[in-house]
């Protein structure tokens, strides 16, 4: 039998982005033995890509801001499909988590009186995003990374988890492999925190990194956990559309927050035509009013370019359908006509560089061309709003992989504070859970040997499929059939395609050795990706309405029958069961806040 490296921890954290690091830090500070597993090198997680800022009602720029206002914006942004208690906890705790980052050495931009500065962002009624130029995610991740290093947390870098292990009904660890050697590694743990991030890589056009393959959704589901809201995938309105190599690469919402405006090929600011009923009266009606807002006129309402992401993404698509798309099929994003060259370079330095170096576009003089790109997964593992416990004993989830906070659409800036608030909570309650366990965690030999066999299978396969060919087809399938605008026929075709791809994935053959073999990694990733993709498609099929990020062509409006339900995707035998469940009811005093 193959040699197996083995580690035992109180708390095993899978994923070393913002949520994973924050969970590990919390668990370590509670005295737990913590192991942190990272699919990439430490500090490379997709969190570094976050640009705009961390939303928290600090009230440094607008003192009227409060957790209640943040709660209200979050709920309304999510079209009230959020788990109210999660949003409640979140809005209350976010400011403290941001202050804590500062205590750990993060250097946020300042207000003139020396406090953390906050910028405007889509869907937030006050300037709320604490930021570090346009590289807030990097600052946050580095600060957390430094804390983790300082606390001596053991990190297993470039380690990919294959399966969660169970001891009876509870999770007792995980097994995976180290990319460098291809050797197998076993983690036994009293509690496991999943913080594996999103699934953008299921789509052809995405802003997401290599790692965001949606492993966590599948790992949890296969271990028996419930998934909810899987139909809600956010397509960010502004991704690059040219050149081909960078299609989907994110253009921060900060561009619009700092004055950038959207225009169609005729040069019209089309967003004025797309203000939804729910937000009528909250956004500027005329360009003149929008210009006054830009100049800092407190009485003017914000421009409709700052509407929530689902609205803006659909507006850009609509302009394209009506023949007003830019040469590469997007919209123009123009900040050059709104702000000085120095302002742009100091507030948006990495955007300036990104366009200069990758597209030969000088954003201080020319417009950018942008279009929707798969950006964020609102849905995911169902968790307890306070403890982040999943429906499986011993398994916790935090960050993008967990669901509930964002409802049907996430506001920009809410994701970074989500990572901090619920990362900390997951670490805390996972430690509590671990402390209650007696004896060492047990790993089941049968599960271990099955996992090892599965991992070695692609080398022994007699099939002919190339791993990257199946991956490419999966991404095209999802883009085409379960993309921004869906209909029943398409989604069904998508499901059929997924089922065919599953067969093909079983016939994938890998060449070469086990050392750092990306073909092998991809081959083993495919079954997990297909599982996650299927869950998304199934949920998309069930929600026969359009709400937030989920748009059904044949049901263009929202339907009250779906306004208070979540779809739960649950593993059942070899397939999935989709169950409609009512949302938790809001207490009266909380309800008042959102009305």
């Amino acid at each position, binding site marked *: 039998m193959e040699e197996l490296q083995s580690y035992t921890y109180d708390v095993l954290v899978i994923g070393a982005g913002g949520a994973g690091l924050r969970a590990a830090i919390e668990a370590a500070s509670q005295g737990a033995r913590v192991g942190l597993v990272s699919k*990439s*090198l*430490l*500090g*490379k997680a*997709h969190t*570094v*890509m976050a640009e705009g800022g961390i939303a928290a009602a600090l009230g440094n720029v607008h003192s009227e801001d409060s957790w209640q206002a943040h709660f209200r914006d979050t709920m309304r942004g999510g079209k009230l499909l959020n788990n109210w208690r999660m949003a409640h906890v979140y809005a209350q705790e976010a400011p403290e988590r941001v*202050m804590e980052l*500062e*205590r*750990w*050495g993060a*250097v946020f*931009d*300042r207000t003139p*009186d*020396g*406090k953390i500065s906050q910028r405007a962002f889509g869907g937030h009624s006050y300037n709320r995003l604490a930021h*570090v*130029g346009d*590289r807030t995610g*990097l*600052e946050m991740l*580095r600060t957390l990374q*430094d804390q983790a*290093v*300082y606390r001596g947390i053991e*990190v297993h*870098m470039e380690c990919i988890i294959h399966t969660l292990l169970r001891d009876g009904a509870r999770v007792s660890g995980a097994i995976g492999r180290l990319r*460098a050697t291809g050797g197998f590694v076993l983690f036994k743990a009293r509690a496991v925190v999943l913080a594996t991030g999103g699934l953008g890589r299921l789509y052809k056009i995405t802003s997401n*990194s*290599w790692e965001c393959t949606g492993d966590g959704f599948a790992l949890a589901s296969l271990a028996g956990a419930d998934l909810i809201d899987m139909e809600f995938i956010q397509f960010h309105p502004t991704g690059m559309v*040219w*050149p*081909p*190599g*960078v299609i989907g*690469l*994110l253009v921060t919402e900060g561009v619009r927050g700092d004055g950038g405006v959207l225009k169609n090929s005729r040069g019209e600011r089309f967003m004025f035509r797309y203000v939804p009923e729910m937000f009528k009266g909250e956004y500027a009606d005329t360009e003149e009013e929008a210009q006054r807002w830009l100049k800092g006129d407190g009485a003017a309402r914000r421009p409709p370019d700052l509407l929530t992401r689902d609205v803006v993404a659909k507006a850009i698509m609509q302009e394209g359908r009506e023949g007003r798309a830019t040469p590469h099929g997007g919209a123009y994003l123009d900040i050059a006509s709104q702000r000085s060259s120095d302002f742009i370079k100091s507030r948006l330095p990495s955007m300036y*560089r990104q366009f200069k*170096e*990758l*597209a030969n576009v000088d954003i201080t003089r020319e417009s950018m061309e942008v279009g929707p790109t798969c950006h964020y997964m609102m849905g995911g593992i169902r968790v307890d709003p306070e403890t982040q416990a999943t429906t499986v004993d011993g398994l916790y989830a935090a960050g993008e992989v967990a669901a509930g906070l964002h409802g049907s659409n996430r506001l920009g800036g809410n994701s970074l504070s989500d990572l901090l608030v619920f990362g900390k909570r997951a670490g805390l309650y996972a430690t509590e859970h671990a402390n209650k366990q007696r004896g060492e965690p047990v790993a089941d030999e049968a599960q271990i040997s099955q996992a090892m066999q599965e991992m070695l299978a692609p080398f022994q396969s007699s099939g002919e499929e*190339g*791993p*990257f*060919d199946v991956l*490419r087809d999966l991404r095209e399938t999802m883009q085409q059939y379960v993309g921004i605008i869906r209909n029943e026929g398409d989604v069904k075709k998508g499901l059929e395609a997924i089922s065919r791809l599953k067969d093909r994935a079983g016939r994938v053959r*890998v*060449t*070469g*050795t086990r*050392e*750092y*073999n*990306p*073909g*092998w990694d*991809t081959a083993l990733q495919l079954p997990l990706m297909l599982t996650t993709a299927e869950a998304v498609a199934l949920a998309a099929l069930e929600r026969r309405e359009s709400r937030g990020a989920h748009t059904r062509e044949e049901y263009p409006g929202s339907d009250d029958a779906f306004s208070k339900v979540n779809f739960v995707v649950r593993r059942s035998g070899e397939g999935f069961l989709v169950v409609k469940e009512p949302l938790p009811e809001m207490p009266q005093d909380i309800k008042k806040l959102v009305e």
Partner: protein
Amino acid sequence: MDATFRIFRGNSQGGGYQEFLVPVEEGMVVLDAVHRIQEHQANDLAVRWNCKAGKCGSCGAEVNGKPRLMCMTRMDQLPLEEPVTIHPVRTFPVIRDLVCDVSWNYEVNKRVPPFTPGEGDLWRWQQKDIERPREFRKCIECFLCQTVCHVLRTHDQKSSFIGPRFLVRAAGLDMHPMDSISRTRFLKEEGGIGLCNITKCCTEVCPEDIHITDDAIIPMKERVADDFYDPVRWLLRKITRRG
């Protein structure tokens, strides 16, 4: 148009160059070409990458002998009439193909004295206070500076020199407006700042345009000189301590 790539294939035991032909498209970067090869010609071609946007710093390699991020190296900046050579960075041991073992850097990082705020400080400061630390915190840890630095690359003094990346990190912490400790002794005795001969290759390769030498290393050399090499200051310290 097609371009020829000479890519290192091998592992810690050795290896050599293998040639690939790749069609070139508009706006293509070197990492696109490597991915294309991986997808169609060599599924097991090892390359480390994450974001493909110059933000994670994973895909460093030596393109035509120069340490660079493959995702930010446009094909139209390279002479394509001759083969494009891609070699893993030479300062760290090869794991496989274009992937190196950079774990040494993570070990060094643990030794840098952490951020240590003073007791009871008022957490208010101005934008002007963060200009300096901010520049250093742009670092994406691609380790290209570590790769090109001749103290590590040619002289292999990894046991006595922490390299530009961690001199920058130490500078960022030292110049943080709320930090209360000095890192000069660490830099002199463990960091090996005296080994840096400020030849600025680190600055030349930095994809984030951090002025590593002028803004981080030289100011730290001056702080070290204040504490250890300034005879007048030394004398003053002696006098005031005794007086």
